[in-house]
């Protein structure tokens, strides 16, 4: 006999049950919601405006919650996957502007602990699995609390929120470069909306700091309904992500030390450089003048940075009176640095042009130097630390110039039907035979790289996030302008692709001169192009057949970070993998050992935990999200309302809708006799201590979870 219960709805599980309508209305009086309400009243007619504001209040009531943080409490950590954004209501928070490896270290390693089973917990599953397949507690009539952890996503993390408090906050503030975000400021929205990891650690600065946390699906809806909010978020996205991206791209590691950039700095054209991050602006500091003997030297701060080797922060000054600077003796320079250090409490570096050859000089001192004789590095050539800083300074100048001239382009759609189509319908990004007008960097999505052979366009490889295209051609043309070559491949978007295009002229000015000759791509021999094209088709990529590459790209499997690849030459079809999966998931496996096959390899119907999970896009409750620490795409069962949006969006049919049942085995149905469904999929055994059970259960090493974004991963396994 079926159990008739109400169907789950969008806001049955609000972010915080204690969030009342009154509290939400109060929030509308605070920024940024106040501004959005004002926009609605100004730009819309009265009735739609009120409806929009009411909508905003409902989002705040259901998709947001109030947090009160202690002094030094970590709010979010670099590397975590973000499912929510934060607004500072009172007090302030600090952003740690350090790279991940030089951040706050192990103290903030793990904020949320998934309730992973221990050894005996794993063993207990054998007899403690539910007796009824897909048994669930009865749906609640009306909203129910999801708890903090439920809202954060993940399969069943429970309420394991353990606040981590920084012990010695003054020391952290002193030693680490941080930036303050005050009342009305928003943070975390880029990671939440982009389904990407957090780029910085943020902690509360004072006791009782009040924050409003908004889960991503609420943020998404507000962004859609309020254009000013969309503009604000998009602008910040461009401003923040681009420079971070350029800094993190290995290709730009050596950028900067070119005669042109040195000339800029010497000529005083550089007014401000942001070293390593956002927020620490040298323009926040006032220029200063210093009397050194008979001379007065004007010092303009142009950059602020964290110290090298973990030491205190640095301020870089430009000495505007170059002639005066040139006349300063060694002792005067040391005195200048010592005084700057004493005034700022930082190491100080003075950079200024000097002499006929425009040689670089700098002075460097510890903050606590007492005597001029303690000053070190005060000479031409400088110490190792000074060299490092100068290189970083030059690099940042170059990167900022590159960033200014970089264009953003997006191609394709987040559309299942487009992915299902073939090569001819994929949007062209750049075309073979065209002039290489810039270096293309893939920021998100998957790109098909193809080449024409006779009249046929064949896939030869693919590019994932972080990969670039066009450097070989640009480098060739830069070295041999008399024998230019055009692009050798066509790039097409597989689904939605975000790219950056750095113009050829910028690459030629700032990037290529800084790359050692040996590291430049080889010169093209145009007469060999036809031979090359033929070889492209027939050669293999590190052991993976070209046709396999084409198969992976055609089926869009290159989006998968943990695709289940089965070697059919080894698989004995014993189904140990299926049984293992079932054992870990209440006796119902979360994948089907079946799927597209090519060259003896099957990509099974198991969630691939995509780079850009389309399943997450339409989820009305945010039940499907990335697990915070590891990034697996997981479904939070209590908040899933069974709408099947994720299953419909999934290009690969890897999400199954299941009928749920009561403890007595009766199917849940609603008043219209429609069954209550839940979305289920592979969670990569995120709660098991041994990793994916399917992989461990295969007796013949025939099954592997592989990140297909990089063909080398597959090649390594195929060659085993």
């Amino acid at each position: 006999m079926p159990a008739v219960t109400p169907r789950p709805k969008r806001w049955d599980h609000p972010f915080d049950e204690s969030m009342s309508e009154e509290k939400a209305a109060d929030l509308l009086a605070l920024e940024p919601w106040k501004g959005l309400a004002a926009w609605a009243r100004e730009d819309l007619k009265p009735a739609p405006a009120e409806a929009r504001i009411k909508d905003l209040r409902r989002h705040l009531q259901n998709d947001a919650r109030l947090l009160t943080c202690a002094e030094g409490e970590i709010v979010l950590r670099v590397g975590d996957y973000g499912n929510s954004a934060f607004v500072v209501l009172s007090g302030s928070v600090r952003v740690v502007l350090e790279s991940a490896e030089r951040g706050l270290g192990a103290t903030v390693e793990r904020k949320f602990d998934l309730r992973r089973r221990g050894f005996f917990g794993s063993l207990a599953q054998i007899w403690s699995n539910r007796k009824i397949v897909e048994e669930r507690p009865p749906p609640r009539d009306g909203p129910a609390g999801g708890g903090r952890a439920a809202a954060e996503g993940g399969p069943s993390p429970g309420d394991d929120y353990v606040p981590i408090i920084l012990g010695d906050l003054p020391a952290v503030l002193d030693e680490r470069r941080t930036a303050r975000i005050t009342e009305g400021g928003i943070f975390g929205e880029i990671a939440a909306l982009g389904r990407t990891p957090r780029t910085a650690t943020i902690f509360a600065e004072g006791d009782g700091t009040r924050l409003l946390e908004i889960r991503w699906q609420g943020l998404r809806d507000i962004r859609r309904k309020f254009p000013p909010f969309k503009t604000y978020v998009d602008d910040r996205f461009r401003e923040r992500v681009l420079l971070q991206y350029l800094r993190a791209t290995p290709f730009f590691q050596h950028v900067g030390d070119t005669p042109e950039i040195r000339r800029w700095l010497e000529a005083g054209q550089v007014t401000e450089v942001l070293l390593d991050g956002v927020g620490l602006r040298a323009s926040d500091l006032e220029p200063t003048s210093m009397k050194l003997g008979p001379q007065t030297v004007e010092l303009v701060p142009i950059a602020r940075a964290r110290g090298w080797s973990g030491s205190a922060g640095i301020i870089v000054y430009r000495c505007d009176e170059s002639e005066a600077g040139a006349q300063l003796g060694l002792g005067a320079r040391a005195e200048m640095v010592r005084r700057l250090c004493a005034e700022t409490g930082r190491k100080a570096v003075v950079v200024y042009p000097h002499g006929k050859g425009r040689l670089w000089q700098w002075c460097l001192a510890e903050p606590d130097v007492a005597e001029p004789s303690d000053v070190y590095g005060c000479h031409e050539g400088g110490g190792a630390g000074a060299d490092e800083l100068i290189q970083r300074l030059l690099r940042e100048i170059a990167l900022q110039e590159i960033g200014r001239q970089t264009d953003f382009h997006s191609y394709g759609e987040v559309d299942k039907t487009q992915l299902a189509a073939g090569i001819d319908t994929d949007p062209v990004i750049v075309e073979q035979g065209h002039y290489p007008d810039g270096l293309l960097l893939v920021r998100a999505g998957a790109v098909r790289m193809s080449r024409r052979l006779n009249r046929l366009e064949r896939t030869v490889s693919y590019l994932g996030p972080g990969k670039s295209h066009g450097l070989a051609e640009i480098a060739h043309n830069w070295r041999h302008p008399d024998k230019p070559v055009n692009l050798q491949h066509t790039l097409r978007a597989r689904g939605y692709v975000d790219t950056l295009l750095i113009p050829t002229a910028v690459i030629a000015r700032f990037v290529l001169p800084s790359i050692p000759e040996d590291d430049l791509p080889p010169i093209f021999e145009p007469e060999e192009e036809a031979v090359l094209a033929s070889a492209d088709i027939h050669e293999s990529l590190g052991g993976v057949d070209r046709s396999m590459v084409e198969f992976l790209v055609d089926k869009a499997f290159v989006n998968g970070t943990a695709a289940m690849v089965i070697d059919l030459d080894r698989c004995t079809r014993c189904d140990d993998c299926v049984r293992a999966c079932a054992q870990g998931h209440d006796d119902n496996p979360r994948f089907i050992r079946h799927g597209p096959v090519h060259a003896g390899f099957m990509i099974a119907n198991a969630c691939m935990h995509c780079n850009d999970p389309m399943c997450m896009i339409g989820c009305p409750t945010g039940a499907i999200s990335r697990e915070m620490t590891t990034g697996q795409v997981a479904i939070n069962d209590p908040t899933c309302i069974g709408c099947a949006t994720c299953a419909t969006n999934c290009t690969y049919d890897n999400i199954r809708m299941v009928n749920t049942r009561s403890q007595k085995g009766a199917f849940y149905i609603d008043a219209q006799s429609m069954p209550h469904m839940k979305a289920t999929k592979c969670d990569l055994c995120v709660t098991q201590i041994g990793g994916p059970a399917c992989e461990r259960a295969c007796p013949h090493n025939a099954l592997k979870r592989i990140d297909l974004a990089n063909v080398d991963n597959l090649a390594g396994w195929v060659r085993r």
Partner: protein
Amino acid sequence: MTRVFARRLRNGSILVAAIAGLLLWYGRQDDPLDQPQRVTGWLLVALVAFLALYSVRKKLAVVPLGSSATWLQWHVYIGLFGIVLFVTHNGWHAPTGTLESVLAVLFVLVTASGLGGLHVSRRIPPRLARRGEEVIYERVPAFIHRLAGRAQELALESVTKTRSRAIADFHAAELAGFLARPTDRLEHILGWGTAHRRREHAMAEFRTCLGPEETPVFDALTDLVRRKEDLDFHRANQGLLKYWFFVHVPLTHALLLFTAAHVVVVHAFGGGR
């Protein structure tokens, strides 16, 4: 050198070294009071118990006890070592007592089924990968049923389309039985192809008698027959891969029981050894 080859070379070398060590040690045991059989016997008991534990590991799939593939490697190489150990334990002679003879027969059967299983698990998967569509074993009967229905539809359609009963009669006489259920299991396992050739010949002969209107219908029917053969092939070979365990595992349980009995008997009637 691939990783798999390197692993086989390493494990094979260790196995050869272990066997050599065993034989060397056994050859030096010239004093009967040292009771080398007692040492080899207990070693054999431990070894058989360890080999049987693999079955437990497979049942505890989510418990972190090491990967199944690693267990299988140990299972295979220790099993191979066990053969030599077993022969050594018997003093290179056939056993004489009833219990010992049964035990020896069981050991041989378990070993043979294990080696047979290892052989088929290496030989059959590539054949399956290259024949027809990949299909889940349990769904084969459903697919066969669907093919049989489609074939019957084609046969009936041919009557109305061609105004001839030839194809329908041929279907009823030659193909209906074949399409109705999984067939030719042994033939597909052993790769004989006799029934396939006979069927192909009969169909080719029959096709020559058909008119231009009938040929396309019959070709569609032929395609269904080939798909049915592929399904039979998968069912037979996947079945073999699944069901050899039903020989190996019960025999192992019997071996464990008789081993326990053997230990008791040896200690009870072994003259205080």
